[in-house]
């Protein structure tokens, strides 16, 4: 039905995941695979770029919740960037901005990682 695409790229020591389309219970496993790969490679600094994401369901949100602790325990983090308003509203409603860092631009998130070393 709804299609979903995920792409992983490295920017320095930070991994950027571009998500595209619809992230729901059916497509969430694809994103999980990417996170598992990152854990295997011990890459804990992650930025998720939401520029082309159209929709996220609770199952999609669950993916970030499942991995954020491991990232943080290893001095990394999951940060969000380029989120459209309608997607941000979902995160906002649930109170994610209290728990996660959101950035308008991917660059800002990268800078945040860089400033912390």
């Amino acid at each position, binding site marked *: 039905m709804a299609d979903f695409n995920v792409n992983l790229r490295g920017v320095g020591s930070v991994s950027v995941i571009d998500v595209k389309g619809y992230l729901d*219970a059916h497509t969430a496993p694809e994103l999980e695979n990417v996170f598992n790969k990152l854990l295997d490679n011990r890459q804990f600094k992650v930025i998720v770029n939401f520029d082309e994401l*159209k*929709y996220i369901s*609770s*199952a999609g*949100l*669950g*993916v970030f*919740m*499942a991995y954020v*602790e491991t990232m943080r325990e290893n001095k990394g983090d999951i940060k969000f960037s380029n989120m459209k308003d*309608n997607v941000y509203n979902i995160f906002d*409603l*649930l*109170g*994610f901005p*209290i*728990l996660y860092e959101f950035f308008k631009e991917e660059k800002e998130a990268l800078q945040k990682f860089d400033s912390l070393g």
Partner: protein
Amino acid sequence: MKLKERLNKVTREHGLENAILATILLFLFNLLFPTHDSILLFICGEILVSLTVIFLYNYIHTYLASRLEFPLSLVLNAGILGALIFFITSGTIALLGDPSGSTTGFFNSLLSILLNFVFIGCAVYIFSTFRELSFLRQKKNPSTYYNTMLVYFALSFFSETFLKIFSGITFIQTAVYVVTIILMGLNSVRVSWIAFLTKRQKYYLLIVSIILSILFGMNYAAVMNDNMIRKILYLFSPGLHTFVNLVMLYGTISFGVIFFTTLFHLPTAEAFDRKAEEVSSMMDLTNLVTQVFDFKELAETITTITARVCNAESAWLITKNKNEIELSSVNNIGFVDADRITNQLFGSGDDDYNSIEIIQYENIIPSVKNGEATFKSIAIAPLKVQGVVNGYLFAARKRDNVFDLDEKKAVQAFADYAAVALENAKLLKESIEKERLEKELDVARDIQRKILPSVIPSTDQLQISALFIPAFEVGGDYYDFFEIDEERLGFVVTDVSGKGISAAFIMAEVKGIFESLSKLIINPRELLINVNDILKGSLDRRNFVTAIYGVINKKTGILNFARAGHTPIHVCSGDKIERYQPQGIGLGLDYRPGFASSLKEMEIQLKNNDIVICYSDGIPEAKNNLEEDFGYDRMDKILQKSHNSDLDSISNNIIQELTVFSKNHSQHDDITLVIFKWNQNN
């Protein structure tokens, strides 16, 4: 045509009556006229005899037709009658001596009539038997030859009569006689039924047929020779004499042919037996495959049949699931041994038997016990469905001769059946599993409904309307009301993330938590903090629960509530609508102190006739064709328009609008809608 049909019907339906009537007439006629001196009497007698023969034949022939399944018993019955004739003829000849003796006198003529009846009966019965035998298992309809023979029998029957009327045509009589014999020969070679007998039956038939052939030959000679029997028959009816004579000859020829045919069939009898068994086994299996769904049971049958049909000492069947091999059934070999040999065969590495293979090994030892003969060859056939091998069927033989082509084919055929059965069993299991899951889902849905309050505590002071529409799957929406005291009413609306059984289970737990905590904690914020703590132990990392918990004071109209990641509360005051979304993260998102510190409580003073709406995200997140959300604004507009209506119509309006909006989309989330209206003056 019609007349013929009716005649046929009469003769068929009243076969017995006709036969009895003709017999009685014939009997009386002969009693009245012991000798047929005048030509008229003679012709009458002949006609009566022929009618009796025809009616008897019709009757017996339909009777025999019902026993075609047992050709051997047909043969045996004919043989017994043949023997009876033999004893009567030899007895009569021995007792009455030469043909010059007298046949007159009442007693003598009575005796002769009875004797003739016995002959008629026996001859007709035997004749009918031959008819059935020559029609048995024929691919082409043999009736042309047969009917021609019948005509010639009739001609022979009446040839004496003609001779009596028009003397001097003896050559015709001889010609008819010879043609009849040729036709008998032609009809006698139709013995294909012999091929279908088992080996044992063939041996039996071989002995019986040679005895009967000789016996009938002797009968023929006895009837032909100039003796008392011939005289009795001839005096009674020359036609009958000819008929009996021909039947005896027919018997001699027929049984002779049967004897030689059987003799020639004997060498292939075993092969034929095996083929027949193979075919019948296949038929049994075809039935089993569609009827038996327990694969083990079927595997048992398949190994048994394989060993038997393929002349193998042992057979066993293994199934392969991914790379795990499981022994399903064994025949005449221990599980341990079968397992060991299988491993031996597959251990060598090149273990893909994609088509049937015969393996000859010197060193396959069938049993760990000493002294047993070794297997000389093993046939391995893959259980293949759509190119995928799901297992193997083994047949092992201790004798020196290798499996021949036929046996190889048979093993493969059985393996194919096993493959189909295995696939069936798998599909059935899957469909049962699916059905089971669907039933469970039904149960879960049922439970979900029961978890929701059955009675809404609506009063004049505080009117309440609550609506819940589940999505197709079981969801995780939950709402409830708790009467804290006479003035205060607690309420909760929650939404468990995810769908299906897991969400339903969490929802049930959430209900339990809220129900017990609502009795202990009145403050909404504190209550939610406690719920979050309790959920820590039971929520999966990626699951969360959004909730709104509030308390309304019916007397003062004060609404206190806290929101944990849930959709906002809308308050409609006149046509003014306010959305309240105090800070608060979803339950289960954070178990650290951050949850409590970020959770804010809110207090709202309601005015008279204010409407408060709580709902789950199934409403704002419902989508239309363009993948747009229903959102908050659409709901607010409906509220604005209908805030003066009663609560149920407001609720209906919202759902109606929502249905129209998302008409081409299936509902993918539960929908919960709880509406309150506070009346100050009551």
